[in-house]
């Protein structure tokens, strides 16, 4: 039986294009649809993150790629190899499970050697020792998993999957159980290993910071569909939906009425002010829209003082809340029309903290604003872990 597994794996060793291609993938459960007609291409060798709140279908997608869940319809290809309905042990894909799922009855060495032994691989000893070296666990080789700390267990799980040199390595919230500091260092560690081994990594997480730190490309998922896909900076700087605007970082969304296109900008009437949005940042053309601006792009100054931004300055605002968080100061500003906007200011020390109640003027550079369709829920993506 294991010969079959080995053949299947060796038959699919890299030849030409080995992208992971998911098309029209759907998974229905008895009472709901977890993944809706998902299309996705993960280029070979990239670090790809599926980001979304719990229940958005990201883990189900991952499990279908691993073969642990059978798709209702659609297909999954690795290069030309159709693995949609292939058994999990016959696809060149390995998984780092959320709770590690280390075998408690085997020691660390045997946990790492498990995949090689099943495929009757040669030079198991050499490979296992190299891998334990890579994750710096050589001295723990003969211990059992429960004797290791969370971070060490996490590295065993990574080594156990990596040693098989899968074409795609799936990481299912691999750092969720670690404390913040350890998580930060593991993020960099995993990123380093990925660069070193050059395999395709698909990483599932609900932690937007983690996704942005590690991934080349992020797909933001919400209720079974991909809302937007792109590099971390693309997604952050130019979100296409209110969900992405709120889930990835924070956004100020201000109601406005679209006036129309003028050259390569879209003009929007926003609370008595006309603002211009660059065409490629305008995700709505007519009717009502949300004008979005990231809090750190919002510039404020005590009323009458200059602000380093061209165009309109909005007056009649005052500070309602100040939180000093060290690297920055976060202000809540009550605008003339009653809405509260967030403004984050770098703690450069040039100016002191503006106290609560101070009258301020507000502005931003027009190239940082974005325009979203007003039919979307302004609060989508807020209040998620």
């Amino acid at each position, binding site marked *: *039986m*294991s010969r*079959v*597994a*080995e053949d299947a*794996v060796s038959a699919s060793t890299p030849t030409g294009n080995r992208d992971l291609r998911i098309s029209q993938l759907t998974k229905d459960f008895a009472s709901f649809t977890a993944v809706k007609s998902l299309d996705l291409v993960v280029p070979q060798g990239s670090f790809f993150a599926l980001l979304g709140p719990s229940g958005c279908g990201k883990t189900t997608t991952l499990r279908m790629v*691993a*073969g*642990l869940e059978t798709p209702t319809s659609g297909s999954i290809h690795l290069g030309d190899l159709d693995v949609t309905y292939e*058994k*999990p*042990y016959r696809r060149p*894909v*390995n*998984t780092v*499970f*959320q*709770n590690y*799922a*280390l*075998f*408690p*009855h085997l020691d660390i060495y045997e946990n790492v050697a*498990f*995949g090689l032994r*099943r*495929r009757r691989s040669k030079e198991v000893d050499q490979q296992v020792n190299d891998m334990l070296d890579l994750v710096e666990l050589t001295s723990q080789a003969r*211990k*059992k998993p*429960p*004797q290791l700390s969370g971070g060490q267990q996490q590295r065993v799980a990574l080594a*156990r*999957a990596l040693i*098989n040199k899968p074409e795609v390595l799936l990481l299912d919230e691999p750092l969720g159980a670690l404390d913040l500091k350890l998580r930060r260092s593991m993020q960099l560690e995993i990123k380093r290993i990925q660069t070193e081994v050059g395999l395709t990594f698909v990483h599932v997480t609900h932690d937007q910071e983690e996704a942005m730190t590690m991934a080349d490309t992020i797909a933001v998922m919400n209720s079974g569909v991909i809302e937007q896909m792109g590099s971390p900076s693309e997604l952050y700087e130019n979100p296409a939906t209110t969900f992405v605007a709120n889930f990835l970082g924070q956004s100020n969304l201000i109601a406005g009425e679209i006036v129309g296109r003028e050259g390569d900008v879209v003009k929007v009437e926003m609370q008595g002010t006309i603002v211009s949005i660059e065409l490629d940042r305008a995700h709505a053309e007519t009717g009502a829209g949300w004008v979005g601006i990231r809090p750190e792009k919002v510039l404020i100054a005590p009323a009458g003082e200059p602000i380093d931004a061209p165009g309109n300055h909005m007056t009649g605002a005052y500070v309602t809340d100040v939180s000093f968080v060290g690297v920055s100061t976060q202000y809540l500003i009550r605008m003339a029309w009653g809405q509260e906007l967030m403004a984050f200011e770098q703690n450069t020390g040039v100016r002191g903290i503006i106290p609560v109640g101070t009258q301020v003027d507000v502005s931003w550079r027009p190239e940082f604003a974005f325009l979203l369709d007003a039919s979307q829920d302004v609060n989508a993506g807020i209040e998620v872990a």
Partner: protein
Amino acid sequence: MSDVLRRPGRIRLWIGDHLVLALGLLVLVYMFVPIAVVILMSFNDNSNSRNIYAFRGFTWDNWSNMCNPTGMCSAVGKSVQIGLLATVVAVILGTLAAFGMVRHSFKGKSAANLIVFLPMASPEIVLGSSLLALFVSSGNSNLLGFRAIFIAHVMFCLSFVIVTVKSRLSGMDANLEQAAMDLYANEWQTFWRVTFPLVLPGILGAAMLSFSLSFDDFIITNLTAGQTTTFPMFVYGASQRGVPMQVNVIGTIMFLVSITIVIGNELNNRRKARALAA
């Protein structure tokens, strides 16, 4: 003043320390006196005594002539035979049933979970008499004896096996099997490399429980035994006239076997705990 206050405190402390200890020891004595008597009596030289329960002097005779009482050793043999056979069959059937009941959902699953407990909860005398009635009324009274005892023992051991293995299985992380499959183990390898080793302690526990339940059983066995005599039946019969001292030898051996298993298990656990602490 302070002296007067301090003294009762000290006395109370002394009492607290020593009285609790003394009571604890008494409870232990209470529990172990019967076993001590069994061991002691296995060395009792009562060959010339009228009162067979009086300790007359030390001898190895009971141990060297263990099988002297007519029918005793064959009764022990029967009990061991039935015990082993019933254990093997009950463990195999029960383990399979436990897997089915934990891993699959089917109509009547919760009812099945309840029904499994019934043989454990029913009074043995009821089970025994109903089994006797069943064998006789179905025209299978020729089964009474070894075969009927075996069938009855498998029946009551089954529920214990199912319950024990089930709890072990449901405590097992289902991700482990998926991880094995993910790491190129097919269904067969996943079972033997991951599932089985992890469930094995539960299966072994169930086997030990089954054997001791079967070896020990008197009521159901007596009702289904026909002409067969098991060890508990032999002891019961002999006690009418006076239990031969060799029964204590068998008792001592049984005690030694079980205490060896318990101590071995404890040592193993401590070794594991030490390894964990290291």
